[in-house]
């Protein structure tokens, strides 16, 4: 586990490198290199580190709309709404999936911090919404029980 953890920490530190690459126009403004690391992270701490969200504060201003019990893990509808001012980014994490990060949404000018999607869940798990607002990170969780797993088709 240790080398993996180290990679994740390095990724967090590598954010500025990704920004430099973005400036060169090699990657989009969302720093694709750092993003792909975040998608490979296997633990909550690693994922948060890759997103640069380590130590995110609990917030009641983020609302996760998801079923308490999902019958089909292949299609679990999840909505995330942030009531925090200046929300810049919303990410959805499913704790017990092979890689936690399901999707991240950059809220640009004009869009409201209110998105919904459908995700696969391998088993019952907590889902986390990570929100970046005004440069700070916030997190909230909700438990979703799955009666039929969505991995392995």
């Amino acid at each position, binding site marked *: 586990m240790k080398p993996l953890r180290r990679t994740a920490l390095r990724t967090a530190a590598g954010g500025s490198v990704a920004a430099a690459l973005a400036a060169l126009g090699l990657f*989009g403004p969302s720093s694709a290199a750092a*993003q792909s690391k975040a998608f490979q992270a296997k633990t909550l701490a690693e994922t948060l580190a890759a997103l640069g969200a380590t130590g995110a504060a609990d917030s009641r201003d983020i609302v996760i709309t998801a079923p308490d019990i999902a019958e089909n893990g292949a299609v679990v509808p999840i909505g995330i709404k942030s009531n925090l001012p200046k929300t810049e980014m919303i990410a959805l994490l499913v704790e017990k999936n092979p890689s936690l990060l399901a999707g991240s949404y950059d809220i*640009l000018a004009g869009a409201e911090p209110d998105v919904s999607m459908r*995700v696969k869940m391998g088993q019952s798990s907590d889902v986390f919404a990570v929100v970046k607002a005004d440069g700070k990170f916030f997190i909230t969780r909700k438990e979703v029980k799955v009666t039929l797993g969505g991995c392995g088709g």
Partner: protein
Amino acid sequence: MADPMKIRATVRDGVADVRVLMAHEMETGQRKDASGNLVPAWHITEVTATLNGTPVLKVQWGPAISKNPYLSFKVKGAKSGDTVSVTWVDNKGDKRTDEAKVS
């Protein structure tokens, strides 16, 4: 070329509710086929939405998004007749763009 997306955009009180349904296999790379070989990952990695040409939402997706992905989001300041355009790119480099008028 992939199948077209279904995009519905309806405006209420100046806020457009945009719903997009994409046609994509979204293979996770974890599943095995009948002979026990891993099916390689094939999923949408990036979605960009614009309103009248101005980017409003940039999405990064992993393999955990369901097959035939659904996405909905809200945009302020939209009015009837505006153009919403959505583009996705998958990890094989395939891409597709579709447009819809706000109603």
